[in-house]
């Protein structure tokens, strides 16, 4: 099946499709479900209009649409780096745990007593059995609330899947040579991507930097997976030169886990090395609802489309810089 098909909406072919957007006649994919008169989709593997049709029937029988679930959990602070960076750990239901193993998975978090608009998104760093670890920086109005007043309870909502742009590359590549560039808090979402790549028989070389977090915290677990790890104190000063040299050997894929500035740096390094290889990049868009409804994550692409970063896949390089 065509990668382009898979990449149009991350929720396609999942139990969360058709979603609230389809119900509102704003489906990203299905022409009928955005008000056009004839079928003009490029085939997701099943007919979204049909799924919507069966869903309406289901609703008559009092069963509602499949929506993301919320779970209340108790968490512990597993590790603390610097002033603001925390690694949190908690257990979820086996069902949610299974759903969060997909690459690019993320959840929304808030303190149970806070209003719902305190929900903020965070990528999954690791998942073992039903135990989940995430890394957060407690610097914004939402994230700070998590640990205020000795709180140890969380509401989590999930699963969401569009945490990495270029997810099909990571899902489909085998026996390739891959470079990971990860800096700061981006180390957290970078880790599960590399785990997946190593499971598919790829060779990964990692370039890690402490960033604003001030610490490299995935070097050891990556080495245990068999990744060749290079640590630098600053990507900007030392990392990018190194990266340009590696790029000259034309790897099969480059994965950038970190802030958008880092993604742009990687693109500049590729241009500098005169290579054009596939790139997967962590999705740093600001999100509030995760369902395509609120519009906070809308971005414009170079082909003049508005895309919802919480659901839609695209090449990071096609997004117009804010």
């Amino acid at each position, binding site marked *: 099946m065509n990668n382009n098909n898979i990449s149009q909406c991350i929720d396609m072919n999942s139990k969360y499709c058709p979603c609230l957007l389809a119900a509102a006649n704003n489906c990203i994919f299905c022409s009928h479900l955005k008000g056009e*008169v004839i*079928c*003009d989709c*490029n085939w997701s593997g099943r007919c979204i209009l049909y799924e919507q*049709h069966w869903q309406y029937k289901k609703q008559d029988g009092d069963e509602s649409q499949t929506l993301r679930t919320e779970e209340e959990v108790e968490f512990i602070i597993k590790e603390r780096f610097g002033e603001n960076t925390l690694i949190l750990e908690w257990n979820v239901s086996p069902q949610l745990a299974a759903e969060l193993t997909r690459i690019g998975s993320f959840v929304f978090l808030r303190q149970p007593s806070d209003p719902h608009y305190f929900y903020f998104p965070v990528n999954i760093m690791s998942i073992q059995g039903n135990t989940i670890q995430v890394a957060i920086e407690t610097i914004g109005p939402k994230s700070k609330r998590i640990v205020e007043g000795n709180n140890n309870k969380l509401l989590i909502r999930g699963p969401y899947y569009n945490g990495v742009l270029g997810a099909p590359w990571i899902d489909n590549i085998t026996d390739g040579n891959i470079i990971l560039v990860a800096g700061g808090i981006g180390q957290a979402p970078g880790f599960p991507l590399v785990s997946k790549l190593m499971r598919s028989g790829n060779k990964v070389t990692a370039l890690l930097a402490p960033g604003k977090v001030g610490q490299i915290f995935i070097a050891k677990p990556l080495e245990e997976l068999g990744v060749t790890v290079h640590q630098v104190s600053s990507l900007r000063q030392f990392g990018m030169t190194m990266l340009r040299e590696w790029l000259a050997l034309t790897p099969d894929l480059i994965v950038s886990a970190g802030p958008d500035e880092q993604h742009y740096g990687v693109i500049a390094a590729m241009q500098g090395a005169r290579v054009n290889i596939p790139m997967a990049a962590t999705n740093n868009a600001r999100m509030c609802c995760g369902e395509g409804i609120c519009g906070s994550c809308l971005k414009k692409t170079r082909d003049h489309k508005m895309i919802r970063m919480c659901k839609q896949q695209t090449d990071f390089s096609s997004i117009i810089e804010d």
Partner: protein
Amino acid sequence: MIKVVVVGGGWAGCAAALAAAKAGAQVLLLERTDLLLGTGLVGGIFRNNGRYTGAEEAIAMGGGDLFVAMDSNRRHKNINFPGHNHASLYDVVTMEPIIKKLLEGYGIQVEKKQRVVHVQKYGKKIQGVFVDGGDEIRGDVFVDATGTAGPMGNCLTYGNGCAMCIMRCPSFGPRVSLTGKAQVKEIMGLKADGSFGAMSGSCKISKDSLSKELKIKLEKDGVVILPVPERLQKTGSLGKKACTQYAIADYAANLVLLDTGHAKLMTSYFPLEDLRTIPGLEQARYEDPYAGGIGNSMRYLGMAPCDNALKVDTMENLFCCGEKSAILVGHTEAILTGLLAGNNAVRYCLDMKYLELPRTLATGDFIAFVHEQMQSEAGLRMRYTLSGALYFEHMKAMSLYSTNPAEIKHRVKNAGLSDIYNVCLV
């Protein structure tokens, strides 16, 4: 060498590929599924009424290969059923491999499971088509034979939902219109009530599920007519049918079964439990569409605006045939338009004047007549075929209907078109 790419391997696409190969081009035929013939896999009826004239014209013009193949693989010849005379029925079960072999014999490259999803357009020309998976296939000229039926979302919106018909969209992915992807605004047919589309007009019952007596009679006579109990008659459904030649009152009062290998039931759909109340059909079950008790495929959604040479309007190197080219019904009609489109595709590459069939021939008159009718909304509510309804009446009025091969051959000769499809143009 001139490269012609035909998209869609139904009867129309097969005919276009054949005509282009005969005219001397290198031909690639792309088919979405794993079988050629498209809805012709459910068809089977030919040479009935004016289709006899059409078939003989194609033979006289040198494009008769497909009709000869059908004649050689027919189960019944010269049968009559309500409104239809001298019909032949080809065996839908064994027809496909014969046609594939015939096309390959002409050096045509037949590629199945190659679904075209997009076009590369430059100005008014198509440079290439993209197949699912991302490969680009280039060509000098393209023929859109993608039909107008499906995908399943259309069947849901305009019909009774996916009935799991021979199109097999869930398995092979939806049909994509070349013309639509080239950003040409398409025409949509209307039902009598003004809503879009029309439902395919027949389904197939497994012959083994008929009663023994009925099966024997059907295989002997080729046709069986069963009266429908009055409480089950539904005249309202006739206007929704694609095949107007069978949308006559006789078909509401009777069930017509034809022996095309399966038992072809001449109605769009018929609830199974009702069907089983009719003597002889107590154990009946559908063969195709599998949910023949519920519905059937929806068609005439997205026809290409084109001239009588079958060149798509506003495009330079795109031709169309079959249902894509007009609201026409039947594989005889598909083949006649396919031959013309394939021949004209080669003429485009050679900068030759396009072939347009004169109105002294049934085929030429048919194409021109349907295109005239399609100018009006009332015309879009009709379907056109050589075998019945409005056009057959017109055909008889114009004295174009003939079952005399010698006479038809003479007409073609007078038009200066004898063996025209056999001429290598390159």
